[in-house]
């Protein structure tokens, strides 16, 4: 039940056409390749399109909308319309402008957390898996303990005790996700280091550190990249969830979770747009990452 990383281009290898192979690679025109990627992995395309839109909004959006901090006491609780796409909140702020500015913060936080936890986690994972011994034993017990907490609770108590700030939130959530990458990379490395090319590299006189990081690590990162896509989505959910509880990023920052927290009381009085629009952004962004990670992971593991 190995993950399916096959890509439609893969069968068109040139080596199999030789005399001894007996296997003739099918011809792939560029049209069939595109069609089959769309047909085989439709959610991947959907995820990539949504994510590209978000990145675009995050990069250029803030230059195109009005200042999200401007309040307007005469223009509060305007329902969504052509000029105010997401309406206004209790202070008369433009919800759409705030959501666009928040995209930059949330998307970058999600990606930073995914990259940080992957880099740190897989580095530790390689050391732990390749060298084994005492370091491995200590790392495994440590990850056991960290994983003994629900990740959200761990991040919550970390931020609550070190204090609210964006860097603290990023670090706290990163810590919660590092163990997943340690485990994943370590398992890959354990399988990888038994292969013959590792013996070959050793015989060629490479130092253990060089083998671990230049030979074994690149071959062990596949699953971690997939995991990173999933983690980016979960990180956005976690950061927004923390902000919703008043931990971490605080008002009046334009952040999706903060906006939902500010707008939540309005729901009871029927003013749905202040909370449901920014919340929808969170779900849409998390979903896009989930689609991408899920499709890359292959269908069997879902």
């Amino acid at each position, binding site marked *: *039940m190995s993950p399916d990383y096959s890509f439609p281009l893969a069968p068109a290898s040139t080596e199999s056409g030789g005399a001894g192979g007996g296997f003739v690679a099918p011809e792939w025109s560029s049209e069939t390749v595109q069609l089959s990627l769309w047909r085989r992995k439709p*959610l991947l395309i959907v995820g990539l399109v949504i994510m590209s839109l978000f990145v675009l909004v995050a990069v250029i959006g803030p230059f195109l909308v009005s200042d999200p901090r401007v309040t307007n006491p005469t223009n509060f609780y305007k329902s969504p319309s052509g000029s105010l796409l997401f309406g206004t909140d209790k202070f008369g702020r433009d919800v759409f402008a705030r959501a666009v500015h928040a995209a930059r913060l949330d998307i970058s936080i999600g990606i930073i957390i995914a990259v940080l936890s992957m880099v740190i986690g897989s580095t530790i994972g390689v050391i732990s898996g390749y060298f084994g011994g005492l370091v491995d034993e200590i790392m495994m*017990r440590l990850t*056991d*303990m*960290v994983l*003994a*907490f*629900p*990740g*959200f*609770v761990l991040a*919550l*108590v*970390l931020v*609550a*005790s*070190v*204090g609210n700030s964006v860097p*603290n939130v990023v670090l706290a959530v990163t810590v919660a996700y590092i163990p997943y990458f340690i485990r994943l990379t370590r398992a890959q490395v354990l399988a990888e280091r038994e292969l013959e090319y590792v013996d070959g590299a050793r015989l060629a006189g490479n130092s253990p550190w060089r083998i671990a990081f230049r030979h074994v690590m690149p071959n062990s990162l596949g699953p971690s990249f997939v995991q990173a896509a999933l983690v980016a*989505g979960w990180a956005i*959910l976690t950061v*927004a*969830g923390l902000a*919703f*509880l*008043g*931990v971490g990023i605080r008002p009046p920052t334009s952040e999706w979770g903060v906006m*939902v927290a500010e707008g*939540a009381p309005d*729901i*009871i009085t*029927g003013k*749905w747009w202040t*909370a*449901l629009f920014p*919340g*929808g952004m*969170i*779900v849409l962004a*998390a*979903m896009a*990452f*989930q*689609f991408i990670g*899920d499709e890359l992971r292959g269908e*069997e*593991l*879902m």
Partner: protein
Amino acid sequence: MLRYLGKRVLSSMATVVGIVIIVFFIVRVLPGDAAIVRAGPYATQEKIDEIRAQYGFSDPLPVQFKDYMSSVFTGDLGTSIRTGGNVTTELVDRLPASLELAFYAVILAALIGIPIGILAAARKGTWIDGASRVFAVLGSSMALFWLGLLLIYFLFFRLRWFPGPIDRLAIGTKPPGTITGFYTIDAALHGDFGLMWEAFRYLALPVLTLGLVLAAPILKMVRASMIDALESEHVRTARALGVPYLQVLFRDGFRNALLPVTTAIGIVFGYMLGGNIIVEFLFAWPGVGRYAYSAIQVNDLEALQGFVIVVGVLYVALNVVIDLVYAWIDPRIRLGHKVDA
């Protein structure tokens, strides 16, 4: 079996000790002075010093550690600065509300996740499978608070099907006498079915919020393990021998898929222990999550620390229970054989 049980309990006790140490480390040792956080942003230096002395933060760390460990392991989680009450008793009082919510949410999640998972596996590759996959991905990327708000808006504000997010019962309704702490069960035991109905109505929205999200991981696990089971050789043999399809599906397929499903339900329970802060806050549910939320708002670290320890211990205990269920379902573990699955 007994040896297995003993080993499992011992190793989980080690994990509990580890959790308690980690919490100490986070709250007391990490930069970000607990006394300053606790004193709030406008506190004077004297106030901070006073708090430091009051909570023993000025003692050397090893002394603090000893005091902390000895009080935690005698069941004393300290005093809440918000309420002035004992954290242990306050948490124990609120636990039944959380457990009732968790209990029904997991049941709902299993009722949604298991049948859809089986159906998706039996009809692998069809549109049913595709739809169930989209549902699963949506569930994994759903923000609990957003779904909760959506449900409140439509099912409470618009349609008035369910009561608003107030509490476990309507304001003024007297809760049933405590037997189990579950209002629904207590009301039924007292024979008050009107009250039981009311309790269910107030449970409906938070349970629906959690259950819909938690159904996703269960669905995924059921589908994946059902596919494994259905593609195994003994299922192929059974089918070749002409055993009726439904019998194959449930006797050969689902029974073998039960193990991973148990794991999934355990994971889901654990996830909920964290997620319930959000849901309990949203629905003003008076459980431990809501308690933690209130603690966070006023930097009541003692109470938050108590909550985290309780959640950690519950989580570990849950994993032990899951392992025992595992052993009970799977004779290979029960009889001490090595399992390679």
